[in-house]
């Protein structure tokens, strides 16, 4: 089938402003949008630039706006979006070139929630025990691949990239609800700051955008509840 793909283009070394270019190519229903981008780059326009690596939804490199929704290009098939496809960079981060945006503010926010395991007790000889029920409490938020689909779909983040954003909350949640971790209080303090969870207005965009189907709004709700009740169960 013939596929028409309209792509946001911007080369900072040549273009005064961005534009859209439209390409036509042959494809099949099960082609990933990433396959189409590769073909456009390979046969029609080598200057097209985008990030990609694993090509099956695990590395988180190829988040983009596809027909207006944040998705991973490698996890979006022609049969999901049809044969007329528009591809644009994710919103809220500065475009560097074509579909490549500056990820630094996103990773800076991630780092602010202390996304690392903290337990200052002496290490046991074997593992620290954790029951399956305790493990289950934060299972969902361990799935995050830091693709930024959620954060860059969030109206509060569009308002200010100082806003920590859903992905940072997901990482905070992953540690706060881990029974082995000892820094829940500190992290809760961070997510309670001005640019923290209080700016989440439960638009649910993040949950809809997540390619890992993490229940992000629910996780943020659990953070808010923990702040109100001071309890983690």
């Amino acid at each position, binding site marked *: 089938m013939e596929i028409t793909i309209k792509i946001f283009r911007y080369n900072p070394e040549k273009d005064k402003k961005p534009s859209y270019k439209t390409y036509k190519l042959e494809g099949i229903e099960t082609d990933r949008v990433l396959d189409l981008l590769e073909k456009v780059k390979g046969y029609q326009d080598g200057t097209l630039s985008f990030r990609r690596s694993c090509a099956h939804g695990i590395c988180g490199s190829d988040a983009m706006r596809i027909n207006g929704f944040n998705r991973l290009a490698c996890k979006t098939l022609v049969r999901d979006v049809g044969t007329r496809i528009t591809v644009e960079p994710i919103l809220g981060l500065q475009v*560097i070139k074509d579909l490549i945006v500056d990820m630094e503010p996103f990773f800076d926010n991630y780092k602010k929630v202390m996304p690392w395991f903290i337990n200052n007790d002496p290490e046991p000889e074997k593992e620290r025990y954790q029951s399956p029920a305790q493990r289950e409490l934060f299972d969902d938020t361990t799935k995050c691949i830091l693709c930024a689909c959620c954060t860059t779909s969030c109206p509060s983040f569009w308002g200010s990239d100082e806003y920590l954003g859903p992905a940072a909350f997901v990482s905070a949640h992953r540690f706060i609800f881990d029974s082995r971790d000892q820094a829940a209080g500190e992290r809760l303090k961070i997510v309670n700051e001005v640019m923290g969870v209080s700016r989440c207005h439960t638009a649910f965009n993040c949950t809809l955008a997540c390619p890992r189907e993490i229940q992000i709004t629910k996780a943020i709700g659990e953070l808010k509840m923990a702040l109100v009740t001071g309890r983690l169960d």
Partner: protein
Amino acid sequence: MHSIREDRTMNTHQFEVIVVGAGGAGLMAGLYASKTAKTAVISKLYPTRSHTGTAQGGIGAALASQEEDHPEWHAFDTVKGSDYLGDQDAIEFMCSEAVDAVYELEHMGLPFDRTPDGKISQRPFGGHTNNVTGKPVRRACHAADRTGHMILQTLYQQCLKNNVTFYDEFQVVDLIMVRGAAAGVVAIELATGELHVFHAKTVIFATGGHGRIWEITSNAYSFTGDGPAITMRHGLPLEDMEFFQFHPTGIYKLGILITEGVRGEGGILLNGKGERFMEKYAPKVKDLASRDVISRAIYLEIREGRGVNGQNYVYLDVRPENVNKYAALDGRTNPDGSPFRVTGEQILAKLPDIVDFCRVYLGVDPITQPMPIQPTAHYAMGGIPTNMYGEAISDEKNTVIPGLYAAGEVACVSVHGANRLGTNSLVDLVVFGKHAGLRAAEFAKGADFQPLPADPTAFVRAQFESIRNADGKDNAFDISVTMKKVMFDEMGIFRSGKGMEHALQVVRELKERFKHVSVTDTGKIFNMEMINVWELGNLLDLAEVTTVSAIARSESRGGHSREDYPDRDDKQWLKHTMAYVDEKGRIELKYKPVVITKYEPKVRTY
């Protein structure tokens, strides 16, 4: 990017240890080296994009959480899995270190799944056995089917916690060698196109594999063999490049990995007639035989007309009713002795990503439908030769190259020999990443910086200049597609002298065509076209070395299976290939013996 005639002012950085690559091995090396030495980790990706993240089923270690197990059993299984080509001293070392390595990951916060009593949960995996009964043993420590993702995240987080310095999205394009020792690397900053020189006392390559040589592959786009391609150009050897693993269960046509953990959880392989064919090929462990054995079985079933609907695929079936049916037939039990039975909800809980992949890419729900699968190029057993401390070696006498290290898939220790066991890639990268980091930092403490060469980027500038100045009459994408096809057809699961000669001829023609390849992007900022063409050059070089190494080996062993030499030949071939490329591009093959400690080579059956 710099032109060859441009001025030579450049960005120079100085670190005691430079780690190239930020997957599991690179992060582990960075974490350990940075404890005592000034260290930087350079990656062409953001670290969390690295391919370690796609590992699914588990990391092997004889914790004996749920049933009897011993590091010695793990070692024997690894030796046998390697078809006796693995070096046994290194294998014993790795398998005994594996236990503490897994506990260390847990202490770093890795969220392993748990047993009812709160211990790390383990599942059976291909080729891992109770050495007394010969039956599968629970040795793969897992976090659902995203164990690699959790390892990558955890190690990156620990690096952040410990303030490890990162250069994200810097493509390393050359190694700086001074008087036979490593003295740094040259990298391109993708965001600016600028060249950077990283002056170092030690360099650790942890760049991963090169599975993008093949058409159907589970490997990331970024797996272009940059590390081995770079060291090879410095006249350093590559070991056992003819051994590349084809994982039995890739999603049909796409090659996306479906973990062996599916079979660990009771899944079975069925041919087009609905028969469980692995009983014929591996009567004892059946669907949990070694990967090379299963990939060959699938290929033979398809070739004999028993693919599904006459197509080039078979089914992997994890529907609860079939899992339970075959578990009953096999008399499979839980650790407490009760019969092994599963429900759809349990499958979904244990294999959520697999279920998701099947729904997204195949439109198939594996709880109610079987999954169409075919073998997929998966893992490089060969690579930069090292000893068991991660030190790179320069010859068949194991002479250490001062300051140069390699760890993870890019390295060939060799612990995987002719065929890697599932879960052992993760063991490898954690254990050898750590030791490479420790060794490099220790070496750096006792060494001075060597003076840099007068013009350390000269080679790279010339290399990119020749790409830029090519006449542009050829298309890189087309060259890439042709290479992948011929390598999959002739250098895949079964090989023959004639087929491999054909592959070599095609690859050499493609290398000629590559000289005329066109690059249309003339910019500096994120010139991914230029980078991708450079990567293709690496893949072509490695495809050639792989093929030349394979043609010479007139036997079948592990992942190298020849129809014209169907048997293993220990008399002639119980040895490692060492391939050297000279300045004119000629490949010379030498050999070195396999280290045997206590496991004498035997006939390998499962």
